[in-house]
Every structure is written in C-alpha cells, then in structure tokens.
C-alpha cells in the first residue's frame, strides 16, 4: 500500500470538510469582525439532525437516496434557523459592544448548544446509519471509498458555487459591501442586518453539509464532535487568512493534508516514540506558527486594516 498517496487522499477528504466549516468562520469574521466560536456546534447539530431524520426515514422505509437527501436538507434547514437565531439573540444586541463581549458570548453559545445536544441525544456515541455500502476502490496503491469521493466532489461544487454567489450576484455584492464598509453600504440602501442574517444562514448551511459529511465518513455522531472540528476549522481559516474566502478553502485543504501526512509519518520520524494519536497536535502547531510568523494568514491582508 502506498502510504503517501493514502495520506494525501485522507487529507483531501478531511481538508474538504475543514474548508466548508472554515468558510463559515471566515464569512462571519469578514462581515462582523467576530469569531463565531459556536460555529463548530452548528456542525454537530447538523450531524445530529441528519442522524435523527435519517433514522426516522429509514424506519419508515423511504428509499435510501431519498432518505439521505431529505435528512441532509432537514439538517441544513435546522442549522440555518439556528444560525439565524444565534446571530439575532446572542450577537446582534452586542453589535456595538467592546469586542471581547461577543467573543465571550460566542463561547457561551457554544457551551449551551453542546449541553442542549447532550440532553436531547445523550452522551453516547451514535452510529450513523448510512443506507448503502460505501464501496472501496483501489487507486494507485491506495484505497478510497464512495463516501470520500462524494465528500471531495460535493465540497468542490459548493465552494465554486459560493465563489460565484459572492462575486457574481446581487446578494454577494451586498455581502462584500457590508464587509468592506458597513456605513457606506447602508447608505446605498443595503439592509445590513439582513445581509448579516443571510451570511449566518449561509455559513450554517455549509456547516450542516459538513456535519453530514463527517458523520457519513466516520460513521459516528457525538454531542462533543463539534468542538475539535470547530477549532480545527478555525485554525484553517486563520491559516488561509481569516476573512478571506479563498484563504478558508486553501487553509482547510492544507490543514487536512498537514494533519494527515503528519499523522502518517510521525511514527517513522520519531522512531515510534510518538504515534498517529498525536494528529491533533499538528493542527495547533500550525495555528501557533501562523500566529507567530504570518498572523494575517497565507492569503490575508485585511487583518492589519481591521485592527
């Protein structure tokens, strides 16, 4: 088996998920200058909703494809409502407060959502009932399965769609205008609050899709799954340059690759002293290194302007 190729494939799959979640962080940051630490929990809620709906639909003997599709749509709808509500209830009243206040609130929202999920779905690990077998394929000495191929393709399509939306549509122009200069956009007749709500809903829809992807890939859903995933995606957003859409995509994929390759080779590099369970360490090494050497990220330049 070709370990290098295998780790690259795993990295791309994981990186695609990071990228989708990182886009949620970066869009909100771009438009409000706020780090929405509750975003990881939105991913988790998306996974939970998808799990619940999928189980119910399969129990009601829905066709597998239909059940998957409907559960994904349900997760997106619930997450969009959740994202909207979070902004409305937790962040909007603090729009003009010192920056620390919404940051602390974001952490609070994150804790509330985690505990809420624990109360509803319990502490146990749920297995995600994928209604079809994900066939594995040999690919140049490595193995890749249907779900993984699906993740990368869907993520790619979504990212292209998002770029089109942001750069080529009226709503996207309004989003960029609010991010650039909210005082001017409002005088152009843009309803800033509406654009901000839309941004939260868009990010949350992506989070729901990411939640579905992770669940389908690992086959496990847990109320705590959003925490680490959220931190990683945040790292990816910072790596790419927070506030920058292309940066979030690049950062997500890069972080996935770094983690995967790191985990694959750390055993060899340390003579077996450290194992692949140190995988998470890489992400945070990256975060620290970026913050020290290039705080504006790979593609970022806005940070200095904002500070």
């Amino acid at each position: 088996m070709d370990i290098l190729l295998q780790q690259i494939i795993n990295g791309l799959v994981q990186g695609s998920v990071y990228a989708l979640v990182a886009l949620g962080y970066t869009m909100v940051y771009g438009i409000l200058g706020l780090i929405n630490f509750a975003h990881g929990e939105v991913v988790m809620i998306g996974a939970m909703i998808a799990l619940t709906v999928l189980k119910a639909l399969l129990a009601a003997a829905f066709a597998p494809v239909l059940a998957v599709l409907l559960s994904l749509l349900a997760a997106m709808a619930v997450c969009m409502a959740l994202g909207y509500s979070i902004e409305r209830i937790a962040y909007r009243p603090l729009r003009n407060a010192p920056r620390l206040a919404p940051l602390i609130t974001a952490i609070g929202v994150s804790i509330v959502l985690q505990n809420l999920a624990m109360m509803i779905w319990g502490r146990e690990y749920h297995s995600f009932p994928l209604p079809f077998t994900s066939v594995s394929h040999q690919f140049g000495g490595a193995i890749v399965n249907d779900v993984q191929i699906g993740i990368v393709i869907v993520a790619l399509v979504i990212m292209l769609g998002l770029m089109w939306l942001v750069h080529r549509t009226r709503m996207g122009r309004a989003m960029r205008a609010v991010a650039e200069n909210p005082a001017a956009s409002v005088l152009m007749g843009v309803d800033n609050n509406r654009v901000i709500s839309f941004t939260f809903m868009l990010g949350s829809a992506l989070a729901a899709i990411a939640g579905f992807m992770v669940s389908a890939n690992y086959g496990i859903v847990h109320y705590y799954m959003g925490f680490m995933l959220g931190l990683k995606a945040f790292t990816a957003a910072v790596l790419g340059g927070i506030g920058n859409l292309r940066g979030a995509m690049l950062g997500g994929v890069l972080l996935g690759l770094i983690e995967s390759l790191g985990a694959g080779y750390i055993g060899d590099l340390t003579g077996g002293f450290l194992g692949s369970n140190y995988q998470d360490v890489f992400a945070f090494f990256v975060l620290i290194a970026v913050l020290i050497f290039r705080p504006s990220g790979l593609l970022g330049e806005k940070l200095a302007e904002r500070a």
Partner: protein
Amino acid sequence: MTPPSEYLIELRNVGKHFGGVVALADVSLHIKQGEIYGLIGPNGAGKTTLFNVVTGLYQLDSGAFDFAGKRYTHCKPHLLAQAGIARTFQNIRLFANMSALENIMVGRHLRTHTGIWGALTRHAAARAEERATVQRARELLDYVGIDRAHQTLAKHLSYGEQRRLEIARALATEPKLLALDEPAAGMNATETVALKALLQKIRASGITVLLIEHDVKLIMGLCDRVAVLDYGKKIAEGVPEEVRRDKAVIAAYLGGEVA
C-alpha cells in the same frame, strides 16, 4: 393632509447633541426641489452632523425632518436611501477592494430585486436584471467621466476619480436628493472645474443637490442658496451674494470685524 410643499427637504428646529456637546441647535433648513443648496461654516460648525441627520446615520434629539412631503424624523438609513437620499463622504468611503463597476452596482442594490432564489435558478428575469445593472453602472462611469478600465479596484483609482466614483455610486440609487460632503476637497483646479460642470449636469437632470464645501469660489459660483452654520447654529441663509456680505458670517469666518 397638507398640500405637497414646494420644499423637497424641510428641517424644523433640529437639535442634536453628543453628551454635553451641542452639535446642532434649533436649525431649520428648507431646500427647494431642483436647487443646489450650499452649506458652509468653519470646522466643527455641525455641517457633517447635519448630513448624518439627513441621511439617517444619526437620530435627532429634537425637531422634525420631512422629505418629499413625508416625515422621516426617526428612520433607518437604508429606508432613507430607499426614499431617495444619497450621499458621499468627506473622507471617501468606497468599497476599496471592489472594482469601480461593482461599487456602482452596489448602489443599484435598492433598485433591483433578485433574491437568492432568483440568482440560484438564474431565470430570465434575474439574468436580465443583472445585465441591466451592469449596463447602468457602465453608463454612470461614463457620466461622471471615469474612463479607466471598469475592473480597476476602487483603491487603485486616483483621488479625483474616487470622489467621482462616489458620486456615481450615489447616483446609482436614483436619488431625489444628492448630498455631497466636501466633494472638491483635495482636488486641483482642473478637477474642481470638471466637478462644477458635473454638478450642474446632475442638477439639470432634476436632482436636488445639497453641498458642503470649503471652496468658497465653488460654492458662490454654483449654489442657488447658501446657509452658514457656526457652533451648531444657522447664522445666515440666502443667495450667495447676500451671505458673502453678511456681518455675522464674516465674523464667524475671520473671527472679528475685518471686512
């Protein structure tokens, strides 16, 4: 209902303070449909505060504000834009990392309607609207005399071009009133002459212009009427010739009785 007033904009006894600082005290202004109305006064006289009140960025503390016969005393800025008030800023506030064309297209936001579903489904009406938006934005670039590549980022335009782009963006909202905060600031003589011609062209198209300016020559040569603010109070109003000879105005500007 009162009959439609001859005034496009009416401020009655408007007051605005920030803590203990009185920025506007009992200011009344009446601006007629189709005139170019100048607002002058020393630094800190409250000119920009008045602009912010008129465009909804500040809520006034007392008095009333009518526009086109309707009361807008407490109104959100994007709704005032909808009602037909557009402005530019003293310190240019373009969308710096968007192209010249896109800046104007944002100005079209409130006169266009394609929602997210329209954009995603790309039905004929949505595509037609997008084409019309681009078309109108191009026309406006020509109208204000920016002959650069339309994809040039706003931040890469020259200073005078940025000022004109701001005007074009404001015009894109199809305003009844165009409020310009020191449009000639930092412009050289040639640019100022071009600006004057542009403002006359805009007025000729039926748009009322409210102008804050320090360039007295420009104000005197352009405005139908002028009001002078000093320490938040209106100390004079009238045709430029009258105002120029007004003793209170001379005192406010020159701080004494120098004639």
